[in-house]
């Protein structure tokens, strides 16, 4: 059965609306999508691309990109399905903290999520922990890199460990690479599938949403060896049948953007990241792990702060007028305490309750307003902790 949604978060969202708080919680931009992408969508609607479609051109272009960026050869006719492999009782390994949807999808398929904790404060992979989590029921492993919520980009060494474990245990890998073009400090995103012995066992997933600031267009894709891709396609056809047709056309335009587009995307987000890091450090947050990718920052509460993440977010909403997401929601192996419950003394200091996720996919105006509000909060209340 599906787990009910985290009860703490909707109440905080409601509070945030009442307090008219600045939203650094939601993971989508509040600035417009690129003009030429919108124009492509509009042109497609006007040109009558409005019935059920499969756009082979997207598959062709994705195959080119994979070859040029990761050195992978895929057959655009058979290996790419635009949207499974789990049998009831199968175990799927996930890294914690994790985007909350993965666990739900696995449960929906009758599988068992098995969480392997990344070690704070740098969210490093412990190879031993990973290897010990495999059993003879392990079917697959999910890898999200660049990572939501921490902004971590898995290093090549870590990817080698993961690849080695997958090969040794003959299991599949499902990668979520939606933030693939949002990396910083010259760090390059490496696709797990490009490592030895991995292409044959990896399902790569990604989308237009984050790269082109069109999270509401619902265009994504899966790339896998032909047999798996055809299974995905079979299921996809019965679940939604096709992605919105005009936006598939627009995807053709998007995917043929030249390097300068991606460079400026990276630069814009990098400067927003730096702005937010400075701002939050000023408020008293500890940021030992600066995001290397994605547009999320997982900020740690100061050591002497007695609040839990949920309590701190509530305080920020009510007293600073800024909203972010309590980190406990990304640790499915513990449950978020409701904001009204009395926190057990020991519980407050579990690291899973000590992080807050801020999103910086926001306009400079929004980030500046947040800075102003947090500045006022500091003057009135002092730094956190």
């Amino acid at each position, binding site marked *: 059965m599906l787990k009910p949604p985290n009860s703490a978060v909707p109440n905080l969202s409601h509070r945030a609306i009442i307090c008219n708080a600045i939203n650094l919680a939601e993971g989508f931009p509040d600035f*417009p999508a690129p003009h030429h992408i919108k124009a492509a969508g*509009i042109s497609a609607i006007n040109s009558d691309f*409005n*019935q*059920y479609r499969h756009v082979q051109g997207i598959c062709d272009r994705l195959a080119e990109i994979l070859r040029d960026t990761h050195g992978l050869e895929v057959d655009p006719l058979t290996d790419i399905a635009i949207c499974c492999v789990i049998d009831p009782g199968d175990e799927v390994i996930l890294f914690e903290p994790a985007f909350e949807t993965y666990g739900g999808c696995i449960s929906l398929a009758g599988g068992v999520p098995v969480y392997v904790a990344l070690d704070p404060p740098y969210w490093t992979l412990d190879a031993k922990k990973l290897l010990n989590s495999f059993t003879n029921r392990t079917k697959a492993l999910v890898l999200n890199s660049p990572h939501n919520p921490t902004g971590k980009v898995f290093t090549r060494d870590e990817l080698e460990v993961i690849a080695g474990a997958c090969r040794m245990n003959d299991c599949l890998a499902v990668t979520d690479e939606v933030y693939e073009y949002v990396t910083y400090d010259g760090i390059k995103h490496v696709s797990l599938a490009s490592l030895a012995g991995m292409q044959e066992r990896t399902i790569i997933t990604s989308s237009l949403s984050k790269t082109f600031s*069109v999270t509401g267009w619902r265009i994504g894709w899966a790339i896998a060896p032909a047999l798996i891709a055809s299974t995905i396609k079979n299921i996809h056809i019965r*679940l*939604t049948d096709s*992605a919105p047709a005009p936006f598939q056309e627009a995807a053709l335009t998007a995917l043929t953007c030249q390097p300068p587009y991606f460079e400026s995307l990276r630069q814009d987000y990098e400067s927003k990241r730096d702005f937010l890091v400075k701002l939050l450090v000023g408020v008293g947050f500890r940021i030992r792990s600066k995001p290397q990718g994605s547009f999320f920052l997982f900020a740690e509460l100061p050591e002497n702060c007695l609040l839990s993440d949920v309590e701190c977010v509530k305080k920020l909403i009510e007293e600073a007028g800024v909203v972010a997401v309590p980190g406990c929601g990304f640790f499915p192996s513990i449950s978020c305490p409701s904001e009204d419950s009395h926190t057990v003394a020991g519980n407050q200091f579990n690291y899973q309750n000590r992080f807050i996720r801020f999103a910086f996919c926001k306009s400079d105006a929004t980030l500046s307003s947040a800075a102003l509000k947090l500045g006022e909060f500091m003057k009135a209340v002092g730094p956190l902790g």
Partner: protein
Amino acid sequence: MSSLAIKHGAINLGQGFPNFDGPDFVKQAAIQAINEGKNQYARGYGIPDFNAAIAERFKKDTGLVIDPEKEVTVTSGCTEAIAATMLGLINPGDEVILFAPFYDSYEATLSMAGADIKCITLRPPDFAVPLDELRSKISKKTRAILINTPHNPTGKMFTRDELNEIASLCIENDVLVFTDEVYDKLAFEMEHISMASLPGMFERTVTMNSLGKTFSLTGWKIGWAIAPPHLIWGVKQAHAFLTFATSTPMQWAATTALRAPDSYYEELKGDYLAKKQILEQGLKDVGFTVFPSSGTYFIVVDHTPFGLKNDIEFCEYLIKEVGVVAIPTSVFYLDPEEGKNLVRFTFCKDEGTLRSAVERMKEKLKRK
């Protein structure tokens, strides 16, 4: 079939989507939404104004007053509404009754949910519900029954008597009803009736619909489910893990679409009725046994006068030798044998295309 069709330059009366486009006022609304920056995630279960428009339309159609916030979930097409309903409300081992022939995603998603499918076949000439068989198959062990009306592929519309009978059996045995009503605005020979509007039925019915067929925008993937809160909950949960959110600009446009005046729907019906008459008369003239179609844009015919062994062979012959595409209906049955005499044509094409197809068939299809 599609690649064969292209290879032979065949006129496609197989695919169930129009070869003409949707109305300008709806397309413009989507363009406006894109330009106004409505391009980010919509609320998972629907943009508030769209949910409201769905509720308004439902009230106009059925007289029922529903809460758009608590009784409506927006999905990525009706296909996803079906998937979300099955995955959200059916547990492994649950018995579900299905009427054959059926749209293929019903069986697929029921299998994904681990359901125990009990099938009842609707037969020509009128595809009436065999009530005795239904009474024998429905019991307290039945979890749900799925009804598609107006019906793809036959064009049958469930009558008030049939729906009343099914309703009383469902109430007696505490059975849920899932209805797929995507063709409700293409009702020609009788009025469309929503099961949810029958006494005692709203509380146990999930009513599903979409934008695609009514507004000739099948590729936009905008659908919805309407049900009481205790049932909507399951649909909403599953939807959150299937597509999470539905296309934002299209939802804004759909809001405008659903508030279209009565004249839009009258014109839609009038246009399709004219097309139906061309195809129906044409198929009769060619020599098919044509079964009456009360709704949808499909007509099902018996192809056996032309001497081919089964529906698949007939369709292949039709493409290669005649240059027209139809769909073999055996794919819509659990037991393909049951559909081998029937094929489905569609009239969601411009009149010129329909006339050309009829001409080709008159010229080249000969009764044996």
